[in-house]
């Protein structure tokens, strides 16, 4: 594996399977009453969050702590960053403190690439702008594999604001590496103009794709997009691209529903679909900690099993 995890595209199939298999072993730790391994004792993991994302930050924090790493949470709000400190100076500060890994969430696409030029430790991308979110893709793949088994040849449909979605970009890359067949479904306004060059299928018609999907992953759609004319209204979006009860019924019986959260219930997904037994949404959160343990373990532990 590379020293950093910045893009899902950095992972070979062997790398990805190693992370998923390691996570499978580590999952048992989360089921114990004492959820802690000594593996990363004495190593320092910094959570460098320039965007508010309590869910992702506590997931990484729990993962690092279960491996006995020291965790420093560095939130951009109320820190020197809000007083105008540059990303480079922040990086040099972390470097001076001896961070072994920096988990970065940033509103600018590519910020983790830039950070990797300035620190010696491993950089883990916890979401950069509208670019990627590779640990989300890994936990999604992990969740799918636990429900469906191996992903080769599985039909996976990702629905929503692909243009602005880091989750979609990472999933397309990782699922392609793992041999799944991905179809993106969205209104044309919410797809990149170059989406035809991506290693996946594209459709504007959710109803046509649902009956042949093993997994349907709904993406969060921000209501503000309406103001930039990406779609006419919330209701129209919901009618054409929302996963409501009728559409849910068109899915094969064993197909599952996913969502990276946070959800707009009633917009892209109906409440009863989100809460159904075929939804993995709550599992995804638990699996997030496990997969992040595996990533930190493999990047910092050095030893592979």
């Amino acid at each position: 594996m590379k020293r950093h995890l910045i893009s899902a595209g950095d992972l070979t199939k062997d790398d990805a399977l190693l992370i998923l298999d390691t996570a499978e072993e580590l999952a048992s730790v989360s089921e114990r009453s004492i959820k802690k391994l000594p593996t990363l004792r004495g190593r320092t993991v910094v959570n460098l969050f320039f965007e508010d994302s309590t869910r992702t930050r506590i997931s990484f924090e729990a993962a690092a702590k279960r491996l006995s790493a020291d965790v420093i949470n560095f939130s951009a709000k109320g820190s020197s960053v809000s007083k105008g400190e540059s990303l480079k100076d922040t990086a040099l500060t972390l470097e001076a403190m001896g961070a072994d890994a920096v988990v970065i969430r940033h509103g600018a696409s590519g910020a983790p690439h830039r950070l990797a030029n300035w620190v010696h430790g491993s950089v883990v991308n916890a979401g950069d702008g509208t670019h990627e979110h590779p640990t989300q893709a890994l936990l999604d793949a992990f969740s799918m594999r636990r429900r469906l088994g191996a992903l080769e040849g599985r039909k996976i449909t990702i629905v929503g604001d692909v243009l602005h979605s880091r989750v979609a970009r990472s999933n397309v890359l990782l699922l392609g590496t793992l041999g799944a067949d991905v179809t993106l479904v969205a209104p044309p306004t919410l797809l990149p103009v170059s989406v035809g060059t991506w290693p996946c299928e594209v459709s504007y018609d959710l109803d046509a794709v649902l009956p042949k999907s093993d997994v349907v992953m709904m993406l969060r759609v921000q209501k503000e997009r309406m103001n930039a004319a990406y779609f006419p209204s919330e209701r129209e979006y919901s009618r054409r691209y929302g996963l409501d009860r009728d559409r849910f019924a068109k899915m094969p019986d064993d197909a599952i529903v996913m969502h990276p959260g946070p959800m707009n219930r009633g917009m892209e997904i109906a409440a009863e679909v989100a809460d159904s037994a075929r939804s993995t949404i709550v599992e995804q959160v638990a699996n997030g900690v496990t997969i992040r343990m595996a990533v930190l373990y493999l990047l910092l532990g050095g030893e592979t099993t």
Partner: protein
Amino acid sequence: MIIKNVRILGGEPVSIRIADGVIAEVAPGMDAPEAIDGGGAIALPGLVDLHTHLREPGREDAETVQTGTQSAARGGYTAVHAMANTSPVADTAGVVEQVWRLGREHGLCDVHPVGAVTVGLEGRQLAELGAMADSAARVRVFSDDGKCVDDAVLMRRALEYVKAFDGVVAQHAQEPRLTSGAQMNEGVVSGRLGLTGWPAVAEEAIIARDCLLAAHVGSRLHVCHVSTAGSVEIIRWAKSKGWNVTAEVTPHHLLLTDDLVEESPVGAYNPIYKVNPPLRTRADVEALRAALADGTIDIVATDHAPHPVEDKETEWSAAAMGMVGLETALSVVQEAMVETGLLDWAGVAQRMSALPARIGRLPGQGRPLEAGEPANIMLYDPSARTKVDPSAFASKSRNTPYEGMTLPGRVVATFLRGRPTVLEGKLV
């Protein structure tokens, strides 16, 4: 003074005798004990840049008139047009005269201020274009460069108004609504990188509109930094109608592509490649080269845009847009146009000296190297190969995309009205 052993436009070796800032005689074999030996270098008329950012007044940390004209002289330039987006904006006779005087005081390169089209570059009210034209700075080129004059009525009025003093409006063609938050060329790479796209149509739509406006009011339009194959097609069409439209291309758009944002020796998302208009695709580069060769695009202009280190050592979206270019321009043109057989040295001189001087209405620049003409001369050794080292630049800024690249050619000497500003590659 005699400059011996030089090849004008790459021709046979001759000597040039200069007296009182004017070329007195061009002939083979003239010599004198104190003659400057050109060593067989190519002699071209001093280069003329229609698009330079000197940053003074306001951002003297990035560049000053002094360092900018030093950089220009090092690049073989004897005249530059200083863009108006300074602080304060060059939108009054007072500011353009200040910049013009600073250029004269330093005496390294003629500085011709560009006047803003609208007050404060804000696109609402015409600046006092006539006052700038009548000032000591004799402004003839007007531009809101950095911003587009997107209001169609204002653009029409500006084009009409400058006819009174033979001015030209140099448009930065960028439809603002189509480029809100734009970070790089919209295409395959922007889609993968999750960076907001700057679509080609945002440039092309404005160029098409402006060509039609210029034709309608019978004025002169100059299109800044053309970057797309589609723009080339529109300008070719406008010229075929006989309309008075000229266009420029930057050296970087003749050589570099948007792939560099994703993969380069300096890492992904490195803002050294962030520029406006953005780097485009290989197909665009090929179309721009062909257009410069066939005259659809008239000239090369540097868009020299200095920025301090801290404005580039950031995440991509926070970084400033622009690249320095004066000291590498001719080398890049040699690489892109001469080595590829698209232009000879006469063609280079036409596009980097004669035509920019004509568009800017500079009677003493861009003249042929003949007896009786002003002795604005640059000597260039095209056989040299130089690894670009930004720390050696005369410019105050280092934001070059060519760092570490080996480029052909070297500026040997520059003469401004007979006075050397650069000798043996060094400032005099």
